[in-house]
Protein backbone atom coordinates (compact mmCIF):
# COMPACT_ATOMS: atom_id res chain seq x y z
CA UNK A 1 0.00 0.00 0.00
CA UNK A 2 1.37 3.48 -0.83
CA UNK A 3 1.85 5.90 1.99
CA UNK A 4 1.29 9.63 1.68
CA UNK A 5 4.23 11.92 2.50
CA UNK A 6 2.47 13.20 5.61
CA UNK A 7 1.89 9.68 6.88
CA UNK A 8 5.50 8.79 6.26
CA UNK A 9 6.74 11.77 8.25
CA UNK A 10 4.30 11.02 11.07
CA UNK A 11 5.66 7.49 11.12
CA UNK A 12 9.24 8.70 11.23
CA UNK A 13 8.49 11.23 13.95
CA UNK A 14 6.64 8.72 16.11
CA UNK A 15 9.31 6.08 15.75
CA UNK A 16 12.06 8.57 16.53
CA UNK A 17 10.39 9.59 19.80
CA UNK A 18 9.84 6.00 20.86
CA UNK A 19 13.38 5.05 19.89
CA UNK A 20 14.75 7.95 21.95
CA UNK A 21 12.81 6.76 24.99
CA UNK A 22 14.01 3.18 24.52
CA UNK A 23 17.58 4.16 23.75
CA UNK A 24 18.41 6.87 26.27
CA UNK A 25 18.92 4.66 29.37
CA UNK A 26 20.92 2.23 27.23
CA UNK A 27 23.10 5.12 26.15
CA UNK A 28 23.59 6.14 29.77
CA UNK A 29 24.67 2.61 30.68
CA UNK A 30 27.28 2.50 27.94
CA UNK A 31 28.46 6.06 28.43
CA UNK A 32 28.79 5.70 32.20
CA UNK A 33 30.78 2.49 31.82
CA UNK A 34 33.63 4.35 30.07
CA UNK A 35 33.69 7.39 32.36
CA UNK A 36 36.20 7.98 35.15
CA UNK A 37 34.58 7.95 38.59
CA UNK A 38 35.09 11.72 38.97
CA UNK A 39 32.81 12.29 35.96
CA UNK A 40 30.15 10.02 37.38
CA UNK A 41 30.08 11.84 40.70
CA UNK A 42 29.77 15.26 39.11
CA UNK A 43 26.91 16.73 37.12
CA UNK A 44 25.70 14.61 34.21
CA UNK A 45 27.57 15.22 30.98
CA UNK A 46 26.60 13.85 27.61
CA UNK A 47 30.10 12.74 26.76
CA UNK A 48 32.88 11.53 29.09
CA UNK A 49 35.63 14.06 29.83
CA UNK A 50 37.95 11.23 28.80
CA UNK A 51 37.15 7.69 27.75
CA UNK A 52 38.57 5.02 30.01
CA UNK A 53 38.17 1.27 30.00
CA UNK A 54 39.42 0.97 33.55
CA UNK A 55 35.92 0.16 34.86
CA UNK A 56 35.86 -2.96 32.67
CA UNK A 57 39.14 -4.03 34.26
CA UNK A 58 38.49 -3.03 37.85
CA UNK A 59 34.99 -4.45 38.06
CA UNK A 60 36.37 -7.98 38.34
CA UNK A 61 38.27 -7.24 41.54
CA UNK A 62 35.84 -4.89 43.30
CA UNK A 63 33.42 -7.76 43.78
CA UNK A 64 33.77 -11.51 43.02
CA UNK A 65 32.02 -11.05 39.68
CA UNK A 66 33.32 -14.24 38.08
CA UNK A 67 32.01 -16.24 40.99
CA UNK A 68 28.53 -14.70 40.71
CA UNK A 69 28.61 -15.16 36.97
CA UNK A 70 29.33 -18.87 37.31
CA UNK A 71 26.59 -19.22 39.91
CA UNK A 72 24.08 -17.54 37.62
CA UNK A 73 25.08 -19.69 34.66
CA UNK A 74 24.77 -22.92 36.64
CA UNK A 75 21.40 -22.03 38.14
CA UNK A 76 19.88 -20.53 35.00
CA UNK A 77 21.01 -23.23 32.58
CA UNK A 78 19.92 -26.17 34.71
CA UNK A 79 16.63 -24.51 35.65
CA UNK A 80 15.91 -23.75 31.99
CA UNK A 81 16.65 -27.27 30.75
CA UNK A 82 14.54 -28.87 33.46
CA UNK A 83 11.71 -26.37 33.03
CA UNK A 84 11.50 -27.10 29.32
CA UNK A 85 11.48 -30.85 29.95
CA UNK A 86 8.81 -30.72 32.65
CA UNK A 87 6.70 -28.27 30.64
CA UNK A 88 6.94 -30.38 27.47
CA UNK A 89 5.58 -33.40 29.32
CA UNK A 90 2.79 -31.51 31.06
CA UNK A 91 1.86 -29.43 28.02
CA UNK A 92 1.76 -32.54 25.87
CA UNK A 93 -0.49 -34.33 28.35
CA UNK A 94 -2.89 -31.39 28.41
CA UNK A 95 -2.92 -31.10 24.65
CA UNK A 96 -3.20 -34.74 23.65
CA UNK A 97 -4.85 -36.70 26.45
CA UNK A 98 -8.28 -36.41 27.96
CA UNK A 99 -7.87 -37.38 31.59
CA UNK A 100 -9.81 -36.72 34.77
CA UNK A 101 -8.40 -33.63 36.47
CA UNK A 102 -7.03 -32.16 33.25
CA UNK A 103 -9.02 -28.97 33.58
CA UNK A 104 -8.31 -28.56 37.29
CA UNK A 105 -4.60 -29.09 36.63
CA UNK A 106 -4.34 -26.55 33.85
CA UNK A 107 -6.39 -23.89 35.62
CA UNK A 108 -4.50 -24.36 38.90
CA UNK A 109 -1.09 -24.18 37.25
CA UNK A 110 -2.10 -21.07 35.38
CA UNK A 111 -3.48 -19.36 38.46
CA UNK A 112 -0.22 -19.86 40.37
CA UNK A 113 1.17 -17.30 37.93
CA UNK A 114 -0.75 -14.62 39.79
CA UNK A 115 0.58 -15.52 43.26
CA UNK A 116 2.42 -12.49 44.61
CA UNK A 117 6.02 -13.57 45.20
CA UNK A 118 5.95 -11.88 48.56
CA UNK A 119 3.05 -14.13 49.64
CA UNK A 120 4.97 -17.39 49.52
CA UNK A 121 8.56 -16.22 49.93
CA UNK A 122 8.75 -16.73 53.68
CA UNK A 123 6.72 -20.00 53.76
CA UNK A 124 8.90 -21.38 50.97
CA UNK A 125 12.02 -20.44 52.90
CA UNK A 126 10.69 -22.15 56.04
CA UNK A 127 9.68 -25.23 54.05
CA UNK A 128 13.14 -25.51 52.50
CA UNK A 129 14.84 -25.13 55.86
CA UNK A 130 12.65 -27.75 57.50
CA UNK A 131 12.53 -30.10 54.52
CA UNK A 132 16.29 -30.32 54.11
CA UNK A 133 16.57 -31.82 57.57
CA UNK A 134 14.06 -34.50 56.58
CA UNK A 135 15.29 -35.46 53.12
CA UNK A 136 18.96 -34.71 53.66
CA UNK A 137 19.32 -32.55 50.52
CA UNK A 138 20.48 -29.02 51.16
CA UNK A 139 17.85 -26.63 49.82
CA UNK A 140 18.50 -23.31 51.55
CA UNK A 141 21.65 -21.64 50.29
CA UNK A 142 22.29 -24.31 47.66
CA UNK A 143 22.00 -24.44 43.90
CA UNK A 144 19.34 -27.13 44.22
CA UNK A 145 16.89 -24.97 46.11
CA UNK A 146 17.27 -22.05 43.76
CA UNK A 147 17.04 -24.25 40.67
CA UNK A 148 13.84 -25.89 41.91
CA UNK A 149 12.35 -22.47 42.64
CA UNK A 150 13.20 -20.88 39.29
CA UNK A 151 12.24 -23.94 37.33
CA UNK A 152 8.80 -23.83 38.90
CA UNK A 153 8.45 -20.09 38.29
CA UNK A 154 8.80 -20.78 34.58
CA UNK A 155 6.25 -23.61 34.54
CA UNK A 156 2.85 -21.86 34.37
CA UNK A 157 3.74 -19.79 31.33
CA UNK A 158 5.71 -22.61 29.69
CA UNK A 159 3.04 -25.27 30.13
CA UNK A 160 0.33 -22.91 28.92
CA UNK A 161 2.31 -21.91 25.85
CA UNK A 162 3.46 -25.39 24.91
CA UNK A 163 -0.04 -26.83 25.33
CA UNK A 164 -1.25 -24.14 22.94
CA UNK A 165 1.58 -24.90 20.57
CA UNK A 166 0.93 -28.65 20.58
CA UNK A 167 -2.75 -27.93 19.95
CA UNK A 168 -1.77 -26.15 16.77
CA UNK A 169 0.10 -29.23 15.48
CA UNK A 170 -1.90 -31.93 13.68
CA UNK A 171 -2.37 -35.15 15.61
CA UNK A 172 -1.65 -37.20 12.51
CA UNK A 173 2.05 -36.55 13.19
CA UNK A 174 2.41 -38.90 16.09
CA UNK A 175 -0.49 -41.10 15.09
CA UNK A 176 1.42 -42.14 12.01
CA UNK A 177 4.51 -42.83 14.09
CA UNK A 178 2.55 -44.87 16.58
CA UNK A 179 0.91 -46.93 13.86
CA UNK A 180 4.46 -47.75 12.81
CA UNK A 181 5.08 -49.10 16.28
CA UNK A 182 6.65 -46.17 18.13
CA UNK A 183 5.79 -45.81 21.81
CA UNK A 184 4.00 -42.59 22.79
CA UNK A 185 7.13 -41.10 24.34
CA UNK A 186 9.22 -41.98 21.31
CA UNK A 187 6.64 -40.34 19.09
CA UNK A 188 6.77 -37.24 21.28
CA UNK A 189 10.56 -36.94 21.18
CA UNK A 190 11.19 -38.04 17.61
CA UNK A 191 8.23 -36.57 15.78
CA UNK A 192 6.50 -33.83 17.79
CA UNK A 193 9.40 -32.01 19.44
CA UNK A 194 11.36 -31.28 16.24
CA UNK A 195 8.26 -29.62 14.81
CA UNK A 196 7.60 -27.72 18.04
CA UNK A 197 11.05 -26.08 18.03
CA UNK A 198 9.83 -22.45 17.94
CA UNK A 199 7.57 -23.04 20.93
CA UNK A 200 10.33 -24.77 22.87
CA UNK A 201 12.86 -22.05 22.12
CA UNK A 202 10.42 -19.36 23.19
CA UNK A 203 9.78 -21.15 26.47
CA UNK A 204 13.49 -21.69 27.07
CA UNK A 205 14.29 -18.02 26.50
CA UNK A 206 11.65 -16.86 28.96
CA UNK A 207 12.70 -19.43 31.55
CA UNK A 208 16.33 -18.36 31.24
CA UNK A 209 15.50 -14.67 31.52
CA UNK A 210 13.45 -15.27 34.65
CA UNK A 211 16.27 -17.14 36.34
CA UNK A 212 18.99 -14.75 35.19
CA UNK A 213 17.37 -11.59 36.52
CA UNK A 214 15.33 -12.66 39.57
CA UNK A 215 16.03 -10.57 42.67
CA UNK A 216 13.54 -11.22 45.47
CA UNK A 217 13.90 -14.97 46.01
CA UNK A 218 17.62 -14.94 45.29
CA UNK A 219 18.08 -12.42 48.08
CA UNK A 220 16.55 -14.81 50.62
CA UNK A 221 17.46 -18.28 49.29
CA UNK A 222 21.15 -17.74 48.51
CA UNK A 223 24.21 -17.36 50.73
CA UNK A 224 27.55 -15.82 49.85
CA UNK A 225 28.75 -18.95 48.05
CA UNK A 226 25.65 -19.33 45.86
CA UNK A 227 24.86 -15.64 45.30
CA UNK A 228 23.70 -14.88 41.77
CA UNK A 229 24.47 -11.86 39.59
CA UNK A 230 21.22 -10.03 40.24
CA UNK A 231 22.11 -9.84 43.94
CA UNK A 232 25.87 -9.63 43.51
CA UNK A 233 25.74 -6.49 41.39
CA UNK A 234 24.34 -4.60 44.37
CA UNK A 235 27.73 -4.87 46.03
CA UNK A 236 29.16 -2.16 43.78
CA UNK A 237 27.52 0.27 46.16
CA UNK A 238 29.13 0.46 49.56
CA UNK A 239 28.02 2.75 52.35
CA UNK A 240 30.28 5.58 51.29
CA UNK A 241 30.20 5.49 47.51
CA UNK A 242 28.79 3.71 44.50
CA UNK A 243 31.12 2.60 41.72
CA UNK A 244 28.57 3.55 39.10
CA UNK A 245 31.01 3.21 36.23
CA UNK A 246 32.00 -0.31 37.25
CA UNK A 247 28.40 -1.19 37.96
CA UNK A 248 27.40 -0.14 34.44
CA UNK A 249 30.39 -1.94 32.93
CA UNK A 250 29.42 -5.10 34.77
CA UNK A 251 25.79 -4.57 33.73
CA UNK A 252 26.84 -4.60 30.10
CA UNK A 253 28.81 -7.81 30.50
CA UNK A 254 25.97 -9.43 32.43
CA UNK A 255 23.31 -8.32 29.95
CA UNK A 256 25.10 -9.23 26.73
CA UNK A 257 24.39 -12.96 26.78
CA UNK A 258 20.66 -12.56 27.45
CA UNK A 259 20.12 -9.63 25.13
CA UNK A 260 22.04 -11.34 22.33
CA UNK A 261 20.15 -14.58 22.88
CA UNK A 262 16.81 -12.80 23.05
CA UNK A 263 17.39 -10.80 19.88
CA UNK A 264 18.92 -13.73 18.03
CA UNK A 265 15.95 -15.93 18.82
CA UNK A 266 13.22 -13.32 18.50
CA UNK A 267 11.73 -14.75 15.32
CA UNK A 268 11.18 -18.05 17.18
CA UNK A 269 9.67 -16.09 20.06
CA UNK A 270 7.13 -14.46 17.81
CA UNK A 271 6.25 -17.72 16.10
CA UNK A 272 6.11 -19.59 19.38
CA UNK A 273 3.96 -16.96 21.03
CA UNK A 274 1.49 -16.66 18.19
CA UNK A 275 1.05 -20.31 17.28
CA UNK A 276 -1.46 -21.56 19.78
CA UNK A 277 -1.63 -19.39 22.84
CA UNK A 278 -2.39 -16.13 21.14
CA UNK A 279 -5.63 -16.46 19.31
Amino acid at each position, binding site marked *: *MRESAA*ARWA*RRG*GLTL*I*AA*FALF*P*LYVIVETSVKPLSDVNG*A*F*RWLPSRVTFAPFVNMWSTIPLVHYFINSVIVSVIATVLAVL*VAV*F*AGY*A*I*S*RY*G*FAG*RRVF*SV*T*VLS*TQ*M*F*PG*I*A*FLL*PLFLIYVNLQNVVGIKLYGSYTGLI*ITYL*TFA*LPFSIWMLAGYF*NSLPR*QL*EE*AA*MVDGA*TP*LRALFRVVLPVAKPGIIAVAVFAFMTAW*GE*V*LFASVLTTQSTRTL*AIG*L*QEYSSQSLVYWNQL*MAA*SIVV*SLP*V*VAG*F*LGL*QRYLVRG*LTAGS*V*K
Partner: protein
Amino acid sequence: MPEVTKARPPGAPPAAAAAGPRRRPRGTRWWQDRRILPYLLIAPAVLLELLVHIVPMIAGVVMSLFRLTVFTIHHWQSAPFAGLSNFALGLNPHGPIGSALWRSFGVTLGYAACVVAGSWLLGMVAAALLNVEFRARGWLRALFLVPYALPLYVAVIVWRFMFQQGTGAINAILARDLHLVSGSTFWLIGGNAFWAMTVTGIWRTWPFAFLILLAALQNIPGELHEAAAVDGASSWRRFRAITLPQLRGINLVLVLVLFLWTFNDFNTPYVLFGGTPPDSANVLSLYIYVNSFSNWNFGLGAAMSVLMLAFLLVISLVYIRAFRAGREADA
Protein backbone atom coordinates in the same frame (compact mmCIF):
# COMPACT_ATOMS: atom_id res chain seq x y z
CA MET B 1 -6.54 -16.47 31.03
CA PRO B 2 -9.25 -18.64 29.64
CA GLU B 3 -7.37 -20.06 26.68
CA VAL B 4 -6.36 -23.31 28.25
CA THR B 5 -9.83 -24.07 29.53
CA LYS B 6 -11.24 -23.33 26.13
CA ALA B 7 -8.66 -25.38 24.29
CA ARG B 8 -9.81 -28.75 23.05
CA PRO B 9 -12.56 -30.78 24.66
CA PRO B 10 -10.98 -33.60 26.63
CA GLY B 11 -11.32 -37.16 25.47
CA ALA B 12 -12.48 -38.26 22.07
CA PRO B 13 -9.06 -38.92 20.57
CA PRO B 14 -9.09 -39.80 16.90
CA ALA B 15 -9.42 -43.50 16.18
CA ALA B 16 -5.85 -44.06 15.12
CA ALA B 17 -4.39 -42.87 18.42
CA ALA B 18 -6.57 -45.30 20.34
CA ALA B 19 -5.71 -48.08 17.95
CA GLY B 20 -1.97 -47.35 17.98
CA PRO B 21 -0.89 -49.12 21.15
CA ARG B 22 -3.03 -52.17 20.42
CA ARG B 23 -1.34 -52.76 17.11
CA ARG B 24 2.09 -52.84 18.62
CA PRO B 25 3.40 -56.42 18.50
CA ARG B 26 5.07 -56.59 21.89
CA GLY B 27 2.05 -55.31 23.76
CA THR B 28 1.84 -52.26 25.97
CA ARG B 29 3.89 -51.72 29.09
CA TRP B 30 1.81 -50.56 32.00
CA TRP B 31 3.09 -47.00 31.97
CA GLN B 32 2.27 -46.54 28.32
CA ASP B 33 -1.41 -47.08 28.99
CA ARG B 34 -3.53 -44.14 27.84
CA ARG B 35 -5.17 -44.01 31.26
CA ILE B 36 -1.87 -43.83 33.16
CA LEU B 37 0.58 -42.05 30.87
CA PRO B 38 -0.94 -38.53 31.12
CA TYR B 39 -0.68 -38.66 34.90
CA LEU B 40 2.96 -39.69 34.66
CA LEU B 41 3.56 -36.85 32.25
CA ILE B 42 2.13 -34.20 34.55
CA ALA B 43 3.58 -35.73 37.74
CA PRO B 44 6.82 -33.69 37.79
CA ALA B 45 4.91 -30.47 37.20
CA VAL B 46 2.40 -31.35 39.90
CA LEU B 47 5.12 -32.13 42.44
CA LEU B 48 7.04 -28.92 41.71
CA GLU B 49 3.93 -26.75 41.77
CA LEU B 50 2.94 -28.30 45.09
CA LEU B 51 6.39 -27.75 46.61
CA VAL B 52 7.04 -24.21 45.41
CA HIS B 53 3.63 -22.62 44.86
CA ILE B 54 0.68 -24.47 46.40
CA VAL B 55 1.96 -25.72 49.74
CA PRO B 56 3.80 -22.46 50.60
CA MET B 57 0.67 -20.51 49.69
CA ILE B 58 -1.44 -22.71 51.97
CA ALA B 59 1.22 -22.35 54.65
CA GLY B 60 0.96 -18.60 54.15
CA VAL B 61 -2.78 -18.72 54.75
CA VAL B 62 -2.21 -20.77 57.92
CA MET B 63 0.53 -18.38 59.09
CA SER B 64 -1.83 -15.47 58.69
CA LEU B 65 -3.96 -16.96 61.46
CA PHE B 66 -1.13 -17.04 64.02
CA ARG B 67 0.80 -14.49 65.97
CA LEU B 68 4.13 -15.14 64.30
CA THR B 69 6.88 -12.71 65.16
CA VAL B 70 10.64 -12.91 65.47
CA PHE B 71 10.10 -14.24 68.98
CA THR B 72 7.79 -17.08 68.02
CA ILE B 73 9.16 -18.04 64.59
CA HIS B 74 11.76 -20.45 65.96
CA HIS B 75 9.07 -22.35 67.79
CA TRP B 76 6.50 -21.82 65.12
CA GLN B 77 4.74 -25.04 66.09
CA SER B 78 3.67 -23.41 69.34
CA ALA B 79 2.94 -19.88 68.12
CA PRO B 80 -0.27 -18.51 69.65
CA PHE B 81 -3.39 -18.72 67.50
CA ALA B 82 -4.53 -15.26 66.51
CA GLY B 83 -7.77 -15.96 64.65
CA LEU B 84 -8.55 -13.14 62.30
CA SER B 85 -6.85 -10.46 64.38
CA ASN B 86 -4.01 -10.06 61.83
CA PHE B 87 -6.61 -9.37 59.16
CA ALA B 88 -8.49 -6.97 61.42
CA LEU B 89 -5.25 -5.11 62.11
CA GLY B 90 -4.41 -4.93 58.43
CA LEU B 91 -7.86 -3.81 57.29
CA ASN B 92 -8.65 -1.30 60.04
CA PRO B 93 -8.59 2.05 58.23
CA HIS B 94 -8.26 3.95 61.54
CA GLY B 95 -5.13 2.19 62.79
CA PRO B 96 -1.66 3.16 61.60
CA ILE B 97 -0.99 -0.22 59.94
CA GLY B 98 -4.41 -0.50 58.31
CA SER B 99 -4.44 3.03 56.95
CA ALA B 100 -0.95 2.55 55.52
CA LEU B 101 -2.10 -0.70 53.89
CA TRP B 102 -5.10 0.98 52.24
CA ARG B 103 -2.86 3.76 51.05
CA SER B 104 -0.38 1.26 49.68
CA PHE B 105 -3.24 -0.54 47.94
CA GLY B 106 -4.19 2.72 46.21
CA VAL B 107 -0.58 3.34 45.17
CA THR B 108 -0.33 -0.19 43.75
CA LEU B 109 -3.57 0.17 41.79
CA GLY B 110 -2.45 3.53 40.40
CA TYR B 111 0.95 2.14 39.48
CA ALA B 112 -0.56 -0.91 37.77
CA ALA B 113 -3.13 1.19 35.89
CA CYS B 114 -0.52 3.67 34.63
CA VAL B 115 2.01 1.02 33.61
CA VAL B 116 -0.58 -1.15 31.87
CA ALA B 117 -2.09 1.82 30.02
CA GLY B 118 1.30 3.31 29.11
CA SER B 119 2.81 0.00 28.03
CA TRP B 120 -0.18 -0.96 25.94
CA LEU B 121 -0.38 2.42 24.26
CA LEU B 122 3.32 2.61 23.49
CA GLY B 123 3.39 -1.01 22.36
CA MET B 124 0.37 -0.52 20.14
CA VAL B 125 1.70 2.66 18.51
CA ALA B 126 5.14 1.16 17.93
CA ALA B 127 3.69 -2.08 16.54
CA ALA B 128 1.34 -0.19 14.20
CA LEU B 129 4.16 2.05 12.96
CA LEU B 130 6.47 -0.90 12.40
CA ASN B 131 3.90 -3.07 10.66
CA VAL B 132 5.11 -1.85 7.26
CA GLU B 133 8.21 -2.87 5.35
CA PHE B 134 11.00 -0.28 5.41
CA ARG B 135 14.74 -0.31 5.71
CA ALA B 136 15.41 0.29 9.40
CA ARG B 137 12.53 -1.91 10.53
CA GLY B 138 14.54 -4.86 11.80
CA TRP B 139 16.94 -2.62 13.69
CA LEU B 140 14.17 -0.67 15.38
CA ARG B 141 12.35 -3.83 16.38
CA ALA B 142 15.52 -5.17 17.98
CA LEU B 143 16.20 -1.87 19.74
CA PHE B 144 12.67 -1.71 21.15
CA LEU B 145 13.02 -5.18 22.63
CA VAL B 146 16.31 -4.54 24.45
CA PRO B 147 14.85 -3.01 27.66
CA TYR B 148 12.72 -6.10 28.12
CA ALA B 149 15.65 -8.46 27.53
CA LEU B 150 17.88 -6.74 30.10
CA PRO B 151 18.15 -8.44 33.48
CA LEU B 152 15.67 -6.84 35.86
CA TYR B 153 18.26 -5.40 38.19
CA VAL B 154 20.14 -3.71 35.36
CA ALA B 155 16.99 -2.29 33.81
CA VAL B 156 15.97 -0.61 37.05
CA ILE B 157 19.31 0.45 38.53
CA VAL B 158 20.08 2.63 35.50
CA TRP B 159 16.91 4.63 36.21
CA ARG B 160 17.93 5.01 39.82
CA PHE B 161 21.20 6.41 38.56
CA MET B 162 19.46 8.79 36.16
CA PHE B 163 16.86 9.99 38.67
CA GLN B 164 19.46 11.15 41.23
CA GLN B 165 18.84 14.71 42.23
CA GLY B 166 22.27 16.33 41.96
CA THR B 167 24.12 14.23 39.41
CA GLY B 168 21.34 12.44 37.52
CA ALA B 169 20.74 12.68 33.80
CA ILE B 170 17.01 13.41 34.15
CA ASN B 171 17.52 16.64 36.08
CA ALA B 172 20.43 17.58 33.85
CA ILE B 173 18.22 17.34 30.77
CA LEU B 174 14.90 18.61 32.12
CA ALA B 175 16.36 21.42 34.25
CA ARG B 176 19.80 22.34 32.95
CA ASP B 177 19.30 21.77 29.23
CA LEU B 178 15.56 22.35 28.73
CA HIS B 179 14.63 24.50 31.76
CA LEU B 180 11.39 22.57 32.21
CA VAL B 181 11.72 21.84 35.93
CA SER B 182 13.74 23.17 38.82
CA GLY B 183 17.23 21.72 39.09
CA SER B 184 16.59 20.81 42.71
CA THR B 185 13.69 18.50 41.86
CA PHE B 186 13.79 15.25 43.81
CA TRP B 187 12.64 12.20 41.86
CA LEU B 188 13.36 9.43 44.30
CA ILE B 189 11.72 10.93 47.36
CA GLY B 190 8.35 12.60 47.85
CA GLY B 191 5.44 12.63 45.44
CA ASN B 192 7.56 12.49 42.27
CA ALA B 193 8.77 9.04 43.25
CA PHE B 194 5.48 7.59 42.00
CA TRP B 195 6.16 8.94 38.52
CA ALA B 196 9.79 7.87 38.59
CA MET B 197 8.63 4.34 39.41
CA THR B 198 5.91 4.45 36.73
CA VAL B 199 8.26 5.59 33.98
CA THR B 200 10.73 2.89 34.94
CA GLY B 201 7.95 0.29 34.94
CA ILE B 202 6.71 1.36 31.53
CA TRP B 203 10.21 1.42 30.05
CA ARG B 204 10.77 -2.14 31.10
CA THR B 205 7.29 -3.52 30.33
CA TRP B 206 6.16 -1.93 27.08
CA PRO B 207 8.44 -4.01 24.81
CA PHE B 208 6.52 -7.10 25.87
CA ALA B 209 3.23 -5.51 24.76
CA PHE B 210 4.99 -4.45 21.57
CA LEU B 211 6.26 -7.97 20.86
CA ILE B 212 2.85 -9.55 21.33
CA LEU B 213 0.93 -6.87 19.44
CA LEU B 214 3.32 -6.85 16.51
CA ALA B 215 2.98 -10.62 16.20
CA ALA B 216 -0.81 -10.30 16.38
CA LEU B 217 -0.86 -7.51 13.78
CA GLN B 218 1.07 -9.66 11.36
CA ASN B 219 -1.59 -12.34 11.70
CA ILE B 220 -4.33 -10.03 10.42
CA PRO B 221 -4.91 -10.82 6.75
CA GLY B 222 -3.74 -7.94 4.58
CA GLU B 223 -6.75 -8.27 2.25
CA LEU B 224 -9.00 -6.82 4.95
CA HIS B 225 -7.04 -3.57 4.96
CA GLU B 226 -6.67 -3.44 1.20
CA ALA B 227 -10.40 -3.92 0.63
CA ALA B 228 -11.17 -1.14 3.09
CA ALA B 229 -8.55 1.14 1.54
CA VAL B 230 -10.07 0.60 -1.89
CA ASP B 231 -13.39 1.65 -0.38
CA GLY B 232 -11.70 4.88 0.69
CA ALA B 233 -11.42 4.27 4.44
CA SER B 234 -8.76 6.44 6.15
CA SER B 235 -5.98 4.66 8.02
CA TRP B 236 -7.40 5.75 11.39
CA ARG B 237 -10.79 4.38 10.37
CA ARG B 238 -9.22 1.14 9.23
CA PHE B 239 -7.38 0.88 12.54
CA ARG B 240 -10.62 1.31 14.49
CA ALA B 241 -12.83 -0.82 12.29
CA ILE B 242 -10.46 -3.65 11.39
CA THR B 243 -7.33 -3.75 13.52
CA LEU B 244 -8.79 -3.18 16.99
CA PRO B 245 -11.61 -5.75 16.64
CA GLN B 246 -9.13 -8.30 15.30
CA LEU B 247 -6.89 -7.72 18.32
CA ARG B 248 -9.69 -8.00 20.85
CA GLY B 249 -8.87 -11.49 22.06
CA ILE B 250 -5.16 -10.90 22.42
CA ASN B 251 -5.71 -7.51 24.03
CA LEU B 252 -7.86 -8.97 26.78
CA VAL B 253 -5.22 -11.55 27.65
CA LEU B 254 -2.37 -9.06 27.33
CA VAL B 255 -3.96 -6.48 29.62
CA LEU B 256 -4.66 -9.09 32.29
CA VAL B 257 -1.10 -10.43 32.16
CA LEU B 258 0.40 -6.93 32.32
CA PHE B 259 -1.87 -6.02 35.21
CA LEU B 260 -0.96 -9.10 37.25
CA TRP B 261 2.76 -8.53 36.66
CA THR B 262 2.69 -4.89 37.60
CA PHE B 263 0.41 -5.32 40.57
CA ASN B 264 2.80 -7.94 41.98
CA ASP B 265 5.92 -5.99 41.00
CA PHE B 266 8.44 -5.97 43.79
CA ASN B 267 11.68 -5.45 41.92
CA THR B 268 11.14 -2.02 40.39
CA PRO B 269 10.39 -0.15 43.63
CA TYR B 270 12.87 -2.25 45.60
CA VAL B 271 15.79 -1.54 43.31
CA LEU B 272 14.77 2.12 42.90
CA PHE B 273 14.19 2.94 46.54
CA GLY B 274 15.63 0.12 48.63
CA GLY B 275 13.83 -1.01 51.76
CA THR B 276 12.51 2.43 52.67
CA PRO B 277 10.40 3.71 49.78
CA PRO B 278 8.63 7.07 49.93
CA ASP B 279 4.90 6.85 50.72
CA SER B 280 3.96 7.70 47.15
CA ALA B 281 5.77 4.62 45.84
CA ASN B 282 5.18 2.18 48.68
CA VAL B 283 3.49 -0.60 46.72
CA LEU B 284 1.91 -3.59 48.45
CA SER B 285 4.73 -6.07 47.76
CA LEU B 286 7.28 -3.76 49.29
CA TYR B 287 5.05 -2.74 52.21
CA ILE B 288 4.45 -6.40 53.04
CA TYR B 289 8.15 -7.19 52.65
CA VAL B 290 9.09 -4.45 55.09
CA ASN B 291 6.40 -5.53 57.54
CA SER B 292 7.57 -9.15 57.39
CA PHE B 293 11.33 -8.79 57.33
CA SER B 294 12.14 -5.47 58.94
CA ASN B 295 9.43 -5.39 61.57
CA TRP B 296 9.57 -9.18 61.89
CA ASN B 297 5.81 -9.54 62.05
CA PHE B 298 5.36 -12.58 59.84
CA GLY B 299 1.74 -13.32 60.76
CA LEU B 300 0.67 -9.81 59.81
CA GLY B 301 2.71 -9.95 56.59
CA ALA B 302 1.09 -13.26 55.69
CA ALA B 303 -2.40 -11.84 56.33
CA MET B 304 -1.67 -8.91 54.03
CA SER B 305 -0.37 -11.24 51.31
CA VAL B 306 -3.51 -13.33 51.55
CA LEU B 307 -5.63 -10.20 51.12
CA MET B 308 -3.55 -9.23 48.11
CA LEU B 309 -3.95 -12.63 46.49
CA ALA B 310 -7.69 -12.65 47.24
CA PHE B 311 -8.05 -9.31 45.49
CA LEU B 312 -6.18 -10.55 42.43
CA LEU B 313 -8.26 -13.73 42.28
CA VAL B 314 -11.51 -11.77 42.43
CA ILE B 315 -10.35 -9.26 39.82
CA SER B 316 -9.19 -12.01 37.46
CA LEU B 317 -12.40 -13.99 37.83
CA VAL B 318 -14.61 -10.96 37.22
CA TYR B 319 -12.45 -9.99 34.26
CA ILE B 320 -12.55 -13.44 32.67
CA ARG B 321 -16.32 -13.66 33.27
CA ALA B 322 -16.82 -10.34 31.53
CA PHE B 323 -14.54 -11.49 28.71
CA ARG B 324 -16.59 -14.68 28.22
CA ALA B 325 -19.87 -12.80 28.40
CA GLY B 326 -18.56 -10.39 25.77
CA ARG B 327 -17.54 -13.25 23.54
CA GLU B 328 -20.90 -14.95 23.77
CA ALA B 329 -22.68 -11.67 23.09
CA ASP B 330 -20.59 -11.31 19.94
CA ALA B 331 -21.35 -14.81 18.73
